[in-house]
């Protein structure tokens, strides 16, 4: 496992996704309520580029006629067949036990620490005064 500086933290905003390539693998970076997550950009159902889908909540109903949104901004919906996955866990909504998107640990680090630290594959300049996302892979 190595640590890779993948993006400036400010580039990954709630409700959106930033796609980066690490070790030749595309991953999507997400910001859910200020916490950062990374998922492999590949749907386990039929191979679509999952992270090109929509970031949404989960429409739920306790009873016909009542509706609520669970996990607002916490789900990614596949751009092909609409399968929904929890951004925080990678779990599929239809079958959370068996179907899961690989995820990677993301940490937010201060630029000052990164300049000194043991990080790999920087493809952009790191500023001491900014924060960055670091993925372990």
């Amino acid at each position, binding site marked *: 496992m190595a640590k890779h500086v993948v993006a400036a933290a400010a580039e990954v905003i709630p409700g959106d996704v930033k796609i980066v390539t690490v070790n030749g693998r595309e991953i999507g970076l997400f910001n859910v309520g200020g916490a950062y997550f990374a998922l492999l950009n590949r749907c*386990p*159902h*039929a*191979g*679509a*580029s999952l992270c*090109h*889908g*929509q970031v949404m909540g989960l429409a739920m109903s306790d009873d016909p006629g009542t509706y609520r949104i669970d996990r607002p901004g916490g789900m990614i919906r596949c*751009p*092909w*067949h*609409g399968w929904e996955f929890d951004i925080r866990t990678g779990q599929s909504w*239809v*079958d959370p036990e*068996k*179907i899961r998107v690989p995820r990677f640990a993301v940490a937010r680090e201060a630029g000052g620490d990164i300049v000194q630290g043991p990080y790999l594959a920087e493809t952009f300049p790191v500023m001491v005064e900014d924060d960055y996302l670091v993925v372990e892979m």
Partner: protein
Amino acid sequence: MSTTTLDRKPESQTRLTVIDCDIHPTLRGGLDNLVPYLETRWHEHLRIYGPLMHQAMAKTLSYPRMQPGLARIDAWPPEGGAPGSSLSFMRRQHLDPNGVEFGMLQPLGPGPMQRNHDFGAAVCRAFNEWQLQEWTGEDNRLRGAVVIIPDDVEAAVAEIERVGANRQLAQIAFPPRTADPPGSKRYWPIYEAAAAYDLPIGMHVSGFNGHTLTGGGWPSFYIEDHFSNVQVMQAVVTSFVLDGVFERFPGLKVVLIEGGLGWIPALTWRLDKHWARMRGEVPQVKRPPSEYIKENIWFTTQPIEEPENPRDLLHLIDWIGWDRLLFSTDYPHWDFDDPKYVFKVRLTEAQKSQLFRGNARAVYSRLG
């Protein structure tokens, strides 16, 4: 819970080649793109009056679709325009990487459903010229469909006679939702022309005939609208068989496109049972219905059934017949089936060869 991830390694991208029996070419920006192919009289009609189908809303479908443009979110061409409107992007995203040896086009336009039949026939002619000019003429893997307005039988036959000899057009596009069930005698001149040109009748789910989408009335949800396609295809099969179309035109080929597969054995068993008891009502049906279905009707695979036990699909295809199914993707629509992932179980090389290519060659005589 249905688990439908792969139970095997994906097909190698470089090895597998397919005949894709359902690809949607789309007008870049709507009907205005047909203007170069429309006679002035109908161009002006379009501009001043516009289209009108058998429903209140002229510019939408019977139910709003799940995703904009009905399409995969990644299928919008980078240069702009609707999904399916750019041949170069279609090549790059689908035809080349997915090993498409031949692609059967299904243009879904409003021509076949117009209440003004003369305008509808003009739109159909324009769609056919557009396919020849901008699609089949530009990529020799593609084969068009003769778009007709079935409820104007005279115009439909005239259009088949006008372009039917062109080998870039490989079938007749006939929507399954017409004013009457398609076995009705009023449509038989179309089948006579189809048989004369050896053009299969390709029935892609579509059409607005003013009737409710389901046998139980108007549905509330898109998921019901989507499922109603299964009911329509069952009505189409029973109508063709029981009206005796295949007795009159034994060489007629009918391809049902995007209507699902799971219902076929159940309908076949039930039709055979009822025929044994009520054959006297339909003496034109000289053999058990299943025999006509297994000789004259083919089915495309997308959107494929994904049973909880993926191996159940093999039983289903055993019952339907391995020679009856034609692989299709539905590119660029949202429910696209990827050839590398579509079959969740391992197929033999012979089975793959049949489903991905061989059966299509048996149906369509204008490939290669």
